[in-house]
């Protein structure tokens, strides 16, 4: 217990000090926080519940558009803001900017959760590959549909409100960093709390044998929907912050970016170890560091390098980093290994 408190305190201190220690890396650090949130939320669905989804990008993109739309729409006519070639310029005052962003984030969390509930009700009856393929379509469809909606800029894209002139040049970077860090902590603690309840056991039961779980009287559908809604809630938050951070939302390249973000969140969770609390956190961190490194040192070959990394992960760490550690040091994970029993089992094989 004590060890854990020291660990958490160290991470918290590092998180708060990081933008000042590495001021040039604020954007990368903010994106790291977002990636961790996405990996954690994907893990709720894909890791604990065993429903591999490619559709979480839908909630991320939805959150992004919603947050920006609310932030603009609260004070100015949204249609005129996004109108292609619009002649008018609107400027948010600092108070309007922050108020709008706060309300926007709230909407960006709640609406995707409701959408997840509605969609989940209709498609969570699918299992295995069928579910994965179905969710793959969700992100693609959302990208194409949003690219045709004029009020959010359609193919022109949506420029989010520029950060108001407050404080130093660094203020924008610091603001978005602390926003994403705060949401990360909120997400982590919330998911940790959820994992300590019976709810997680139900999700695991669904993963291990859904029919048996149902036979035992668990209303699996209800739990599956709630699980996905939790995922969507935090995904939407992450999207909302990312929209403000990037400053420009494009329907298929930034918001419903299934090809990158949508795949990355799955990869990160698998790299770190599916079905663990810390796996996605570690996976996202390692992944982000490697990715940024490749982009710096293997320009033009970055995707090749990333591909090699993925192959290496699959071959040498099929259970992810956490799974590999668990196999190496089972005692650290509170598992008692009876050496004689282990040997006997090996001989049996």
């Amino acid at each position, binding site marked *: 217990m004590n060890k854990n408190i020291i660990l958490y305190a160290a991470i918290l201190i590092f998180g708060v000090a990081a933008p000042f220690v590495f001021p040039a890396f604020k954007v990368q650090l903010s994106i790291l926080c977002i990636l961790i949130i996405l990996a954690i939320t994907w893990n709720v669905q894909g890791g604990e519940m065993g429903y591999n989804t490619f559709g979480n990008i839908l909630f991320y993109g939805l959150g992004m558009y919603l947050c920006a739309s609310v932030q603009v729409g609260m004070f100015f006519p949204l249609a005129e803001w996004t109108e*292609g070639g619009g002649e008018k310029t609107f400027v948010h005052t600092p108070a309007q900017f922050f108020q709008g962003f706060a309300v926007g984030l709230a909407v960006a969390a709640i609406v995707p959760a409701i959408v997840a509930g509605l969609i989940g009700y209709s498609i969570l009856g699918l299992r295995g590959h069928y579910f994965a393929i179905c969710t793959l379509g969700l992100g693609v469809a959302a990208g194409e549909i949003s690219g045709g909606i004029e009020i959010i800029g359609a*193919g022109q894209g949506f420029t989010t409100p520029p950060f108001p002139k407050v404080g130093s040049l660094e203020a924008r970077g610091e603001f978005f960093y602390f926003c994403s860090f705060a949401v990360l902590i909120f997400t982590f603690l919330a998911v940790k709390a959820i994992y300590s309840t019976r709810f997680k056991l139900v999700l695991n039961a669904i993963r291990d044998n859904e029919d048996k779980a149902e036979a035992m009287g668990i209303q699996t559908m209800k739990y599956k929907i709630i699980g996905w809604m939790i995922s969507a809630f935090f995904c939407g938050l992450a999207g909302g912050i990312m929209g403000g951070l990037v*400053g420009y939302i494009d329907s298929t390249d930034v918001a419903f970016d299934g090809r990158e973000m949508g795949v990355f969140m799955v990869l990160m969770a698998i790299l770190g170890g599916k079905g663990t609390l810390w796996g996605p956190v570690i996976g996202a961190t390692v992944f982000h560091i490697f990715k940024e490194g490749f982009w*710096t040192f293997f320009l033009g070959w970055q995707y090749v390098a990333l591909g090699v990394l993925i192959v290496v992960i699959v071959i040498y760490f099929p259970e992810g980093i956490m799974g590999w550690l668990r196999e190496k040091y089972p005692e650290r994970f509170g598992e008692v290994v009876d050496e004689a029993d282990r040997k006997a089992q090996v001989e049996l094989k």
Partner: protein
Amino acid sequence: MKIKNIIITFVSAIAILFSTSVVSLAKVVGDKIILGAAISLTGKYSSNGVHTQNGYNMAVDRINSMGGVKVGGKTYMFDIIYYDDESNPKRAAQLAERLISQDGVEFMLGPYSSGLTKAIAPVTEKYGVPMVEANGASRSLFTKGYKYLFAVLAPANLYLDVAIRTAVELNGGKGVRIAQAFEQDAFSQDVRLGILDAAKDTGSKIIIDDKLPKELNDMAATLAKVKATKPDVLVVSGHTKGALTAIRQIAEMKVDVPMLAMTHCDAAKLSKQHGANSQYALCASQWHKTLTYKDDFFTDGMTYDADFTKEFGYAPPYQAAESSAALLVFKDAFERAGSFDQKKVRDALAATNMQTFYGNIKFAEGGQNVDKPMVLFQVMCDDAGKCENKVVAPLKWASAELIHPIPKWSDR
């Protein structure tokens, strides 16, 4: 023990990664002026990204070999740091941040495409980094009140305006029936707005108004409608792929339309790739080699065309020419500012009034170039099947007469 070693190696690798990427390059090192640019080397804009990069490199070599930039009695050479933005706005914004805050770049060149420029402009604006861009034409870039953004090209809504007006003129001043299909991206949608304006002005009617997906490689549905409704003008815009797809399928489906107006014909090397099939296509261009503008570095369009072809093995599309022009603008501004103070350079840029081989350059309040009209050329082939782009409008530069209407496929 082994595990410990692995962990130590891993941690130190991370430490090295971080420490090497913090190496800060100031904007001017010794006699070098370092400019930053995020370019699409991979992804859907990669071919145009390479045109842009070649244009930049060509101008850097030329300016450096002709004595460099003289600021405050000292001579400086240009140098550019490139990153690959993968044709992705999110990546581009991140890279702009990285160029400025990690690499210490204080002056930027633009990326390829309006969408990516839209993503980068807020970042350069925040840091007060002057950016001269040559490939972001979307009108909405110039209405955001950006002070540090300068574009050497004419805004996108003017691209095909001339084509519609010409069609109306040829129709005896009566409105025409327009069919149009545009890719879902910032640039093409702006071209569309330009057509809507022109249609309203001339009393023309838009009978087909389709949107095409990004990365498009099929527009058969639109063309089937065109075949059925027989419009007077068909307008297509979707970067290089859009131009290639349109010509390929129009030829396959034998779609007859009196006027076909497009963008990106020269970047797509249409006449080379599709030969006689691309004949009669009317293309909007920012530049053409036969225009009579002059400067001291590249002499004129014809010389630029010859030099570029010699260096890179293909004829320069306008994307390369306008990119080269961006460097000339920077050089001129540095010399007039007589300093590397960002504010002073920005003011010098705003006061630019010069002629380059690519055209006249003078910036309006919003940063767009207002001193350079668009030109229209038509792909024309001789009997041997050799095709060439010939300027047909405006008349001042026309080297051939517009062929209208396009002969039917059955007669070709």
